[in-house]
């Protein structure tokens, strides 16, 4: 495998992790987030600062996850009282707040970010295997959660939280679990990204990135683990294959978001189901 393919696969793995992490919050539990990149950023900055300070790569990743989850819990608690439309604005605000704060901090490198981040020590192939292993693990965990009673409870909350309460669901606690889990995984993705790129700047965690992650979840089919995985791969490849797209990322992802919501609210997963039923009907028709 060439260096380019190795690097691209690593990036795909990181984006799959990110998309699956948001899928837990937005897809499973129905809580919209327009600021997911902030948690990704907290993980990246935390892990980068720690390995630069001489701490090992593994504990730095864990600390990045913990930092992101802590912020996730705070945002989660703050958002328990707000309705869906306010949650979109709150999380967007958190995203901008994160950028604003990071840009102002000398010790975090300000606008220039952090460069010369330490190597993971795993080598490029080892690093890729770690990323793919984690992505596969989170994929498996997502499938499991969906099947468990936690997934069942999430379904009810995403559907109608007032009614969920009347059947005994402690909506607040379940939401906080979704936020903590999802943001912790985003934090891991951030730590991985920092040691993959080995240089991070605030803009790598900006609004465009939040929208890209959301686009992966929505295009894949909100809540469909397989659909989100496929969308994360496709949407990562697209700007790589067509370089000019990079300049229009926000436009493209925003457009894809709107198109999906307008024409196929269930995303790729919904289209696949439609195709499947249509195909079976066609088969049953006499030739």
């Amino acid at each position, binding site marked *: 495998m060439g260096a380019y393919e190795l690097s691209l696969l690593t990036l795909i793995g990181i984006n799959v992790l990110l998309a699956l992490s948001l899928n837990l919050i937005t897809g499973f539990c129905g809580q919209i987030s327009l600021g997911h990149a902030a948690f990704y950023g907290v993980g990246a900055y935390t892990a980068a600062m720690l390995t630069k300070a001489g701490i090992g790569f593994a504990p730095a990743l864990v600390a990045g996850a913990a930092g992101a989850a802590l912020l996730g819990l705070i945002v989660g608690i703050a958002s328990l009282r707000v309705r869906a439309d306010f949650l979109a604005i709150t999380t967007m605000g958190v995203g901008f707040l994160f950028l604003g704060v990071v840009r102002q901090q000398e010790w975090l490198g300000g606008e220039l970010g952090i460069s010369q981040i330490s190597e993971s020590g795993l080598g490029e192939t080892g690093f890729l295997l770690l990323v793919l292993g984690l992505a596969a693990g989170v994929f498996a965990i997502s499938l*499991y*959660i969906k*099947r*468990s*009673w*936690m997934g*069942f*409870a999430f*379904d*009810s909350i*995403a*559907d*109608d939280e*007032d*009614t*969920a*309460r*009347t*059947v*005994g*669901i*402690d*909506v607040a*606690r*379940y939401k906080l*679990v979704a936020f903590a889990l999802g943001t912790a995984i985003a934090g891991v993705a951030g730590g991985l990204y920092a040691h993959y790129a080995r240089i991070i700047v605030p803009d790598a965690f900006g609004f465009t990135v939040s929208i890209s992650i959301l686009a992966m979840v929505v295009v894949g089919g909100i809540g469909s683990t397989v659909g989100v995985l496929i969308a994360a791969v496709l949407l990562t490849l697209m700007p790589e294959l067509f370089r000019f797209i990079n300049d229009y990322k926000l436009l493209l992802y925003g457009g894809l978001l709107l198109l999906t919501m307008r024409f196929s609210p269930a995303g790729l997963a919904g289209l696949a189901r439609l195709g499947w039923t249509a195909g079976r009907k066609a088969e049953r028709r006499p030739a």
Partner: protein
Amino acid sequence: MSAPLLDVRDIEVRFDGLKAVDGASFSQARGTLTGLIGPNGAGKTTLLRTVTGTVRPVAGAVSLDGRDISALPVHRRARLGLGMSNQIVRPFRSMTVLDNVALAAGLDRTRNPLAALLAVGRTEQQARARDLLDLVGIADAADAEPENLPLGYLKRLEVARALALAPKLLLLDEPLAGLNHVEAGRLADTIATINQTGTTILLIEHNLSEVMRICGRLLVLDQGRLIADGAPREVMADPAVRAAYMGAEADAAA
């Protein structure tokens, strides 16, 4: 004699100036089937919602089984034994009819996120859900999406879902509305049977003939106040009750 199962004290609810419930008090003994009637807008639904906790009163207290539950959130009250069927149906539209009920039947599985995470498999709860759907007469719609069902089915789904919580007190808000004459009679019989097998029931219903037939006691609410309480025949003969209903009819005619 033991404490009543439900005790509602001096409940007062306001919606921007409007007093929806105005100092209502009553209690209900274990094992009874009580009807709560009154003209449209009397505050019946609102009063029941203060019991489940979905509406917060500005004053008053609610006790279940001798315990003051006024400060408890909705989900805790459901776990202590309160199940309510909604007048305006609220099925989970992303689930089948069966799963709507199975979720409620899995009260023990969903008690906290960790327990829920460790539990997989719904067969047991789905079997119980199927029995309950059968009990209320909509087992044929078990695998349907709520979206495609007529109101009469969704009303009974509400009842089955509330029953799945195995509540100590079952609160039913107009479960017979939307059912034809035969279905209504049958569901009323089922409600009476559920009561005879040990569940205490408080029933809001406009179908007075069925209420008179199955309830042992009637409460009448008018403009947020309880104006009568007693045996169904006596209550219906009460001039104040007649006036309340006549007044409402006169208003409707005007």
